[in-house]
């Protein structure tokens, strides 16, 4: 990556990255796994592995990404699904055997699995819901 030589270059990079992220978020499914120490100790690595396997098996090109701890350590592993421009939908205490149902119902059928859902969240704190 190129060194930023000026503030203008930083601003241009920010705008470019924002556009790219917005487009990729808007036009695809992003699955986010909480991978702070608390998440990992609650089994997030295994959950993430199962998510990847499941997506591969169903030939779904979703973006799988990791984040740090969001605070609800008692509900780890946390898995968020964001599709299009909608808020992230968070599932709590996700175990590997819950993954197929979440992918089947949420991704394939567009039905949130109510039993396991914790809440929904905009991409920044305090941003208004659409």
């Amino acid at each position, binding site marked *: 990556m190129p060194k930023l030589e000026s503030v203008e270059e930083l*601003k241009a990079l920010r705008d470019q990255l924002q556009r790219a992220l917005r487009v990729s978020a808007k036009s695809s499914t992003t699955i986010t796994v909480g991978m*702070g120490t608390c998440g990992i100790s609650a089994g997030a690595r295994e959950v993430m592995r199962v998510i990847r396997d499941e997506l591969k098996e169903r030939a779904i090109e979703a973006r799988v990404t990791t984040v740090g701890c969001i*605070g609800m350590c008692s509900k780890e592993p946390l898995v968020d699904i964001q599709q*299009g*421009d909608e808020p992230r939908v968070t599932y709590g205490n996700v175990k590997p055997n819950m993954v197929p149902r979440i992918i089947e119902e949420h991704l394939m059928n*567009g039905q949130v699995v109510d039993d396991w859902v914790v*809440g929904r*969240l905009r*991409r920044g704190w305090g941003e208004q819901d659409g």
Partner: protein
Amino acid sequence: MAERHRADVIVSCLHGRCEGLVPALREEIERQGLGDEIDVVESGCRGMCAMGPVLLIQPGGVFYTGVQPDDVPELVQETLIKGRVLARLTYQVPATHQEICRYEDIPFYNKQLRHVMRNCGMIDPESIEEYIASGGYQALAKALTTMTPREIISEVKASGLRGRGGAGFPTGRKWESTLEAEGEVRYVVANGDEGDPGAFMNRSLMEGDPHAIIEGMIIGAYAIGAHEGFIYVRDEYPLAVKNLSLALEQAREYGLLGEGILGVDFDLDIRIVRGAGAFVCGESSALMQSIEGKVGEPRPKHYHATERGLWDQPTALNNVETWANVPLIINNGADWFASSGAEDSKGTKTFCLVGQITNTGFIEVPMGITLREIVYDIGGGVPGNGEFKAIQTGGPSGGCIPADKLDLEVDYDSLLEAGSMMGSGGMIVMDNHTCMVDVARYFVDFLKEESCGKCSPCREGIRRMLEILTRITEGDAVMADLDLLEALGRTVQNASLCGLGKSAPNPVLSTLRYFRHEYEAHIKDKTCPAGVCRALIEYYINPEACTGCGLCKRDCPQDAISGERKKPHVIDQELCITCGICHDVCRFDAVGVR
């Protein structure tokens, strides 16, 4: 392809649900004479199968869902030729999603204010790009190009930011002293040596948003004229070390660290130093000794670190959370920062909620919030049938605050008044099954292990206090021991060299202040009211409730329980070692403590 075509239409062929769409698109594009300009690309499933065929037009990022072959002529005409977006095809949030509770409405979050931790759990900490896209390093750009070092310092001073490591020294004043002190070189240091049992908010910050700390440090280094910085992280936080190292590397690659940062005549590099597991190294002078490669022991404070810190040069040492607050102040201004928080404690503070609390986790709240709001509204109260008894703030050397002080507003000064302290932000909730003498003994035992041994009040005093506390929990103490304990505590508090010793008696003195009756019960009545201290309790089986299932009998390591199947069992008190296993395994609540 990208060079030849003006635009790509990317169609996600969703498990065969869009038959006819791709040919229709190609045909229509050809018919309009756009075949050379626009390409139709079929891509894999994007995991939005329920929304029907989805279609993305690049560049521009127009995204349509549920596109049918019938839509094609209008789509080509309006969007591809005229550049208009067709509202009816844009993504609609499914109705069921609107019914899900918003984070802001979940009790855990609705009293929180996420400023410092704004990116934790939101962005990928391994990606500097996501940090930059979320507005990261803009404060640095602003500080470097539009503010003088003095202006940065006055902004931080005006914000009222105080050190988040717990002592609460005004950050702006610290920087000012460092800038004004005489020295050949200056240093910035971030303290990430979070060692309090039950505290992990610094870890969450370092793991979840490392760039916020780095950005704050670069701004601070520019303000005081430092060209070298250190982040001191305990080695027990491998993920924090990993994410911070990666973040530093990325910042160097983008030229945000190194020579001529952002084209400005300012150089800085930051290194990570890993702590080797000594609790005392979280103390500022011990931490600097440790960075220098010496034994991690505090030194007398004839000079402040701002005058003679690292290698006897002026040093601005702040907690990682303090550093992460700096970009916010530069971006939004001192007034914005000072608009949240309490009178003399501005802004927000992160805490960890652990112990007998429903929602274990880390939180960020405006200063001045009451403990009651933290425990009941955010924390969800005590789980099960327990009853709230006390909350310990400030880590092992903090104090225990009882239930009748729950309306205390959390800020640096009120916590000190209540005999505790802010500390770095650990909060341990205790219920009626917790013995306060045992708690004090536990923390003093921890501090005995962690005392570096350099000064005798701390080294010897804590040890003697532990002996007395152990005697009390074993029922061997006399009432005069309480006075001795108190006197010892005051001496250790007044005479110790560093903050570890000065605050070590807090758990004892605060429990003596608020829970003296429990100490007296141990000494006078030889009972432990909470049923914890093993030497003072006995387990018994309630014959009314016992079903004679035999579970306790099977699990008793002493074979102290006898009884016929389906008939009430009894415990032989001579053999019983009060391990409590019978109490834990009983499914009928038949084993009691007295």
